[in-house]
């Protein structure tokens, strides 16, 4: 259990907001988390005291800003236990990380090569591969999910063949909350010499990730879901792979020398960080990681697990509810559901009037929606600053809303 829960809520000033004169109950952290004071203050402090473009100036401020930026790189390296700090590439977020790999690693692929994704992927891990298909005739193979909302590992094994060049799957589904067995997925791929990309957007703030222990080849995540600013994210890649890949974008900072005839590229990590990056975002990420570490990922996961069990148990008791959640233990506090005969959007609209923020729709997982046979779901997600009392209020309000909407 997280000690001093009240204190944790106090760290997030936005949670004191009122909407329509009602206390805000924020249950959409899976889309983006709220920010603690320490992150907000760090960004303000940076602009008040240290702001200057990084890697550019010989003067004090620029060097200070550069140092802070590079300190974040080292912080991230330690957080996911990467071997080298130059394996940590700053991106705009998960989406850019996957696009970078699809583009640059994609350059190394040939017509007929295959990439394996899964049926529960976010569009961010589907569309970049389809864009690559416009340049190369690669084949996208899809791991199906079981009726219990798990990846079908037997089917996955059958999809692998000589032409498989990459497996790219999500660690945790942003719609189902299912935690996928990534170690197993990686081991199976590696037994066939296939590298693996893991989308850690939903897991990085929830489960400890050790990239060396996992032996994962690429890992991507976003700052904004882990209490940092938006517009900053991380791509981790193994040094040898990143070295083999051509640059993603061209511009300032990513070069060694430029002439009109020929340009040579900078070493890692600058090679993949063209132009002025989001350095204030990067600095906020360091503070966010320190915040998570101070509370402890184990404690966070344990508390969020309790919220999840509590919410699922209460929701299951509701008549006509369809929960899209696995019966197994490998899940997180991201809960999708529908109420028979009622549109998800109506539920979201009415809950909003009661101060409750949930997500409705397809959650950027349209192929998964198709598989589930729905146009969307209601999704409630719970993180360290949510409370059992909020769940009680949410379920009670949901019951009221359903009574109003029922025919």
């Amino acid at each position, binding site marked *: 259990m997280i000690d001093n829960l009240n204190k944790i809520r106090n760290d997030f000033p936005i949670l004191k907001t009122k909407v*329509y004169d009602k206390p805000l109950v924020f249950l959409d952290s899976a889309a983006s988390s709220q920010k603690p004071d320490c992150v907000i203050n760090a960004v303000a402090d940076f602009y008040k005291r240290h702001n200057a473009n990084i890697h550019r100036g010989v003067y004090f401020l620029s060097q200070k800003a550069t140092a802070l930026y590079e300190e974040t790189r080292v912080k991230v390296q330690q957080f996911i236990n990467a071997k080298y700090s130059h394996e940590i590439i700053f991106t705009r977020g998960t989406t850019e990380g996957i696009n970078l790999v699809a583009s640059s690693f994609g350059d190394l692929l040939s017509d007929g090569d295959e990439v394996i994704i899964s049926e529960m992927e976010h569009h961010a891990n589907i569309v970049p591969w389809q864009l690559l298909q416009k340049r190369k005739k690669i084949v996208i193979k899809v791991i199906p999910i079981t009726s219990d909302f798990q990846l079908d590992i037997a089917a996955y094994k059958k999809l692998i063949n000589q032409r498989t060049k990459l497996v790219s799957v999500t660690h945790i589904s942003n719609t189902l909350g299912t935690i996928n067995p990534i170690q197993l997925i990686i081991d199976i791929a590696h037994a066939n010499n296939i590298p693996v990309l893991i989308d850690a957007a939903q897991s990085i703030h929830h489960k400890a990730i050790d990239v060396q222990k996992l032996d994962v080849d690429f890992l991507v995540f976003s700052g904004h879901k882990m209490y940092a600013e938006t517009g900053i994210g991380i791509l981790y890649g193994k040094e040898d792979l990143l070295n083999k890949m051509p640059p993603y974008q061209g511009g300032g900072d990513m070069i060694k020398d430029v002439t009109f005839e020929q340009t040579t590229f900078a070493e890692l990590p600058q090679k993949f960080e063209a132009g002025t990056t989001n350095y204030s975002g990067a600095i906020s990420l360091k503070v966010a990681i320190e915040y998570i570490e101070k509370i402890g990922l184990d404690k966070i996961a344990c508390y969020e697990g309790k919220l999840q069990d509590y919410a699922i148990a209460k929701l299951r008791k509701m008549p006509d509810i369809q929960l899209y959640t696995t019966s197994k233990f490998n899940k997180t506090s991201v809960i999708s559901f529908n109420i028979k005969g009622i*549109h998800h*959007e*109506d539920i979201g*609209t009415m809950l*909003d009037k*009661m101060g409750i923020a949930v997500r409705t*729709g397809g959650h950027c997982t349209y192929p998964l929606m198709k598989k589930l046979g729905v*146009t969307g779901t209601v999704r409630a997600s719970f993180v360290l600053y949510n409370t059992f009392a909020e769940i009680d209020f949410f379920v009670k309000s949901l019951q009221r809303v359903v009574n*109003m909407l029922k025919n």
Partner: protein
Amino acid sequence: MKTIDQTQQEIVEEFSMFSDWMDKYEYIIDMGKNLEQLPDDFKKDEFLIPGCQSRVWLVPEFRDDKVFFKTDSDAIITKGIACLIVRIFNGRTKEEISKSKLFFIEKIGLVQNLSPTRANGLASMVDKIYRYVK
């Protein structure tokens, strides 16, 4: 028959009876529930309003210079709102519609209180009506 503006004013007055947002929505929901279902043959893509999370159909029909609308949605609140729009525009001539200005949405506060996705949907529904009568 009331003018477009009179009908709008009437709706504004109906909504002013409710002080609580839940009551206003209950009223919209009831309208949605009472609306006749659109036969499936009309649920075609050409009648679908873009920009909504839920599906909304708006089917125009011209009779004696006047335009009539049928509408439906798979979400009940959207359906209720579509009802209001249809109530305002049904049985009007092209001229009446193209000269009209919608003020009831703002007056009953629907726009600031509806989720932007729905507000967008509302805007494109109104937009579609104006385009039909061009």
